[in-house]
């Protein structure tokens, strides 16, 4: 289990229609290739909107959060399937 809110190195594709598709992220020098984005949603804290992505590498499910204000990505949770 990873700690919550860990900053991650990530590769994403900006698709037409303002869609962001996470491709892989790195944590502790290991690369996790994303095979499916299972769900996405938005929430707001004050004036900042956060984009949440539930993603799967085929083995585990992760929640990645994008903060558009400071352009950072963090890993929030991990569930082993």
């Amino acid at each position, binding site marked *: 289990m990873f700690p919550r809110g860990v900053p991650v190195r990530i590769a994403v594709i900006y698709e037409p229609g303002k869609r962001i598709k996470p491709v892989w992220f790195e944590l502790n020098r290991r690369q996790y290739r994303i095979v499916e984005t299972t*769900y996405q*949603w*938005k*929430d707001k*804290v*004050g*004036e900042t909107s956060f984009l949440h992505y*539930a993603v799967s590498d085929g083995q585990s*499910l992760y929640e990645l959060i994008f903060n558009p204000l400071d352009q950072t990505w963090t890993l929030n949770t991990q569930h082993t*399937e």
Partner: protein
Amino acid sequence: MQERIILHVDLNAFFASVEQQSNPGLRGKPVAVIGSRERTVITTASYEARKYGVKTGMSIWEAKNRCPNIILVVGNNRKYTYTSSAIFKMMLDYTPLVEVFSIDEAFLDVTHSLKIFGTPERIVYLLKARIRHSFGLTCSAGIAPNKLLAKLASDMQKPDGLTIIRPDEVQNILEKIPIKNLCGIGTRMEKHLSLLGIKTCAELGRFPANILIKKFGVTGKHLHEMGLGIDNSPVIPADGKDRVKSVGHSMTLPKDISNRQEILKQMLILSEMVGRRARRYSVSGKTISLYIRYADFYSSFTRQHTVASPMNQSHDIYRTAVAILDAVELHQPVRLIGIRLSNLRHNVNQLPLFPYEHKKALMVKAMDDVNNRYGDFTLTFASLLDESEKCSRVISPAWRPDGIRCVDVR
């Protein structure tokens, strides 16, 4: 008058279905969504869990007893409110007349949309396809000449169904439908009507209206119409300027408390939540109500106090609520606290007369500005700094995607 065409759309096992879409490992399995706090119950169960008799409101112990393999998932309210708001926005593409009934239900008046979309069935198919494509969710829909019948219809085929009740079919359909299936008839009313020998909707319609009116007053007339399948209530779209009658928040505490300081802290949190929401929507109120539920769950009380001039500053709300608390003797530890501001005045902002009042108003405005920018409780009362739980954790039935009823939940 043109016959109305009303749709009722109900998202199937909404919270559980969202979790099953988020986590493919949960699909096809018995899943129940629960709250994040210690004392929680089943919020929603997936259809796989419902087969075992798991229901909303059931204790976790009972759910596990009925379905030992059940998977419990702590709900993510922001995921649900976002999804719900996005789906309601989709509905507006088919008609401006969308009435949000709860987080997972809405009525659409499509009477005047048929020139663009053809038939109401087509609107349902288009909407269902978009909801499935965007979120992987299914919904049940009902098409009927009014809201009462549309809701009845959508309940007839679940999940993912579509039921149409045409005007000439109403009498036949109501003949066998039990009265409890009608929206607005709860267990207590069902018992009252049962004592009169009324079991089905048609029996309710045939029952002499004057007896119903004598027994239930205005509701009696409404019941008679319900039995006949008549409902003239319009679909009222939310315009963000909802004229609510009260603004309130309540909180079930993680553990029962009897320490006065602990109770006061919770009351200050609730007062700030009520005050913030009231100020955001320029609402002030003259009556403060304090609701306390005791540890035994069944005993509770509500007391209220009305002041001379309307207020919406958190500290004033808190002080009034504390005065109410001081006037009562608590017989047991406290399980739940609620604070409500009512007797509302809309868009009234009285200018402070005295320098002290003026300074206080400026301080509250400065706090609100900071919290609007960085999030609720970023700048707050020093006595709340060590409190970790300072937000709503339950989506109220009154939640709406916009306006004063849009409560931020975590």
